[in-house]
């Protein structure tokens, strides 16, 4: 499987995503430059964490206008895989590939810490290697990770089982105390209705090695590798993304 990791000006975790894909998972991973439009034939585009355009104006607001994003949107519409981590999630929301938005953490502080996540949905190409309800640990590091959406959207997300990951405590309960940023419904990650676009605030690329942050995020990557190899993922008929 061929992966592309986009570098926007200000992307930071692009190196880490490439390292995880290339060194740890042995994948064919290439770097994609924001000023270009060529996706180099990749099967999945990963929008990495960081501070694209310095997070100036609004997180992800400027990156969505990068030339490469035209191709990313097109890939998503064709049913190709698009995955946004942290700042990448913010870009996907700004680009309309995922519903909702990410705003300032409730504490108004940047927070870097491991969190417990409950895998809510395993019938997605990104989570098929987990069991439903499984609790995994992946670090977060963000200042603006509080997921919000209007009540109708939120209801649809829950109804369609698009909420993939939720912040929970060590016994698996989605309590306010376990919610690090104030996200509605403790939402940490979602997929679009077609289930080919995935955004999450935690950083799975920092949780793929026992020695460095543990392996809580490893199977997210392995899920997509499996889905691609099996050709099992059949994107739903094209509708407006994000709804």
């Amino acid at each position: 499987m061929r992966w592309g990791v986009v570098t926007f000006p200000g992307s930071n975790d692009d190196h880490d995503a490439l390292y995880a894909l290339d060194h740890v998972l042995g994948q064919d991973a290439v770097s994609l430059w924001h000023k270009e439009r060529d996706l180099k034939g990749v099967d999945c585009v990963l929008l990495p964490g960081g501070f694209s355009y310095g997070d100036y104006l609004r997180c992800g607001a400027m990156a969505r206008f990068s030339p490469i994003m035209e191709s990313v949107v097109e890939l998503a519409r064709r049913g190709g895989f698009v995955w946004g981590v942290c700042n990448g999630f913010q870009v996907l929301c700004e680009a309309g590939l995922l519903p909702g938005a990410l705003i300032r953490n409730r504490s108004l502080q940047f927070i870097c810490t491991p969190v417990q996540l409950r895998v809510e949905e395993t019938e997605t190409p990104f989570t098929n290697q987990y069991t439903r309800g499984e609790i995994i640990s992946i670090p977060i590091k963000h200042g603006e990770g509080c997921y919000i959406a209007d009540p109708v959207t939120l209801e649809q997300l829950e109804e369609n089982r698009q909420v993939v990951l939720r912040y929970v405590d060590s016994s698996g309960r989605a309590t306010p105390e376990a919610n690090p940023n104030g996200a509605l419904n403790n939402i940490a990650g979602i997929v679009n209705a077609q289930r080919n676009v995935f955004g999450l605030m935690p950083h799975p690329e920092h949780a793929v090695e026992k020695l460095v942050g543990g392996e809580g995020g490893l199977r997210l990557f392995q899920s997509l590798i499996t889905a691609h190899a099996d050709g099992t993922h059949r994107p739903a008929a094209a509708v407006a993304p994000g709804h």
Partner: protein
Amino acid sequence: MRIGTEPVSKAEALDHGLSAEEFARICETLGRAPNLVELGVLSVMWSEHCSYKSSRRHLKQLPTSGPRVLQGPGENAGVIDIGDGLAVAFKMESHNHPSFVEPYQGAATGVGGILRDVFTMGARPIANLNSLRFGSFDHPRTRYLVNGVVAGIGGYGNCIGVPTVGGEVYFDAGYNENILVNAFTLGIVRNDRIFRAKATGVGNPVIYVGSKTGRDGIHGASLLASAEFSGEAEEKRPTVQVGDPFTEKLLLEACLELMELDAIVAIQDMGAAGLTSSSVEMAGRGGLGILLDLDQIPVREMSMTPYDMLLSESQERMLIVARAGAEEIVQGVFRKWDLDAAVVGSVTEDGLFRATFHKQEVVCLPVGLLTDDAPAYDRPANPPDDFDTLQVLRLDRIPPPGDYSQTLLRLLDSPNIASKAWVYRQYDSLVRSNTIVGPGSDAAVLRVKGTHKGIALSVDCNSRYCLLDPYVGAMIAVVEGARNVVCSGGVPLGVTDCLNFGNPEKPAVMWQFTEAIRGIRDACVALNTPVVSGNVSFYNETDGRAIPPTPSIAMVGLLDQLEHHTTQWFKAEGDQIVLLGRTREELGGTEYLAIEHGQVQGAPPWIDLRVEKQVQQVCLQAIREGLVRSAHDVSEGGLAVCLAECCITGPDPHLGAAIELEGAIRPDALLFGESQSRIVLSVRKRQLGRLREIASAEDVTLTVLGEVRGRRLVISPLIDVDCEELARVYYNALPRRMAADAQPSS
């Protein structure tokens, strides 16, 4: 617009912070009075901050070389070989006054500046540390400063994508009006690709890259960093620079990309004194001159004068001496990253620093006058008047605690001992995915990708010890840094220091400084850890009151095998808890004495460098043989706090300990004394025999204290507390004091 080419008067020179004698020397050397632009240049280059005029001759005492040292002091950062064709470049610098005046931007630009110093050398920054000193929590400004500084460090470091992996934070009323923000960066560089800041090649182009020049930070180096505070800090706000970490991220990537191409002869960041110091210092190292055409400088606003351009400390700028003909290569890379790159001058053979503006020469000064021939003073140094009385401590007048468990809890609640998670959770400590041990253990450990090696990092200084005896205090700062590195499994390699003191024109401050230098020298010689870079920050005074002497030491160590990395917390029930080293009956300068008895008094802990080395050797040897499950240095709060931290700083669930303590000394000294050269280890029971052999071979005292057991810390017969209670106090101490509705209190 006043271009400033008329000769200046002595009064103007005094306004610029030069002394009458210094001005007379300038006039004599030049055979004329300098003009205003030249005066600006001279005043910054002769400032304490740039010239090190009070410290230069003393710094020469420090050991700076060794078989692994590829670059010692005098460049943008020091460089030490770590094998495998790689090296580490690192340095620490202060940004104290700006951070007091404007905490967010002051701290942020401190981080930005030290990052540039490291990537200028061709190194990819992989770790930041910081050493912070704030006033006490009963001072009304402290919470504002803590919030601003921490947010500023995070705001810059997080955005540029370099992890902040460790540091230290202390609170003391001595810093109420003069906080300290010392920032450290370490980068990895191929040892055949180290870039330096020595201009060579007459005719080579001088290229300006990065942000445009604005009117911010003018006279930051001379007026802000090289003078005492008095009155309202707010008035000095315009001298603080404003940081833009996004631009620095682009600058970092562009510079590293350019360094892969054969274009750069020399490169230096425009830090303090901006364009002036970068040009003059590069020319000075090469024994050449530089001619600048100021009309070519990218500027943020029209009508900037030569004076503004030469003195601006706008951030995120670099000056490059390129190979002639490589201009287009440089400009191509910077265009890709949407940054300015302008040819602004050339290297000359005349040994002069010259600048033209609108075709008129506005500066013509000998480079030597601005660098090697800048003033160097041997200032008088005498111990402070109260030195002898400070050192007196009558132990017989210190009543023992009524309830040792409560005393332990009060120590864990001290902001100097309590968990700093409130601080470091605001820093990205993970980016670049090298962080094996992050903040919250004795030293941070990072892997070096592509090798089996790791880097261990610690920054330390107990300024209370330094106040009571700067020689001993500075030695302890060095050895504690080394001990922390050793406890993490690393061999100490070398040091960068950040020497924060008061006004050097006062003999008592100068004495503290010279004593601290002597302490650093002796300890670094003993431990074989050269000082490869550093920074001196004088004039940390407000209204005539100096800070406690604070020579912060950052120690860098190497793990040959990453799997030797060790953390401080207990790992498993039944493991034996062992103390290496001896506990003396001493309480001088301890946190216990300050918290429980309100005294900062006595001699700091005894230190014997030979014993220290032996203890560290035993710990390292045991770690390398795979015997050690946890290792923790005994420091502030003594053995009781050390054991509590072993219980509660690991992941849940916390492990307790059952300890039998006996000794012929006072129980409070046994539990809370801060005797040096001690390490608490936990090992499997069957490994105890081998550990004893190693210790006895090195003649190190080894005491089995007890074992890891249950969920309580029991130190019979004096202390018995549930681990959850210890943890609650330890982890809430800072959040409680920083809460929005908290009132100023101790």
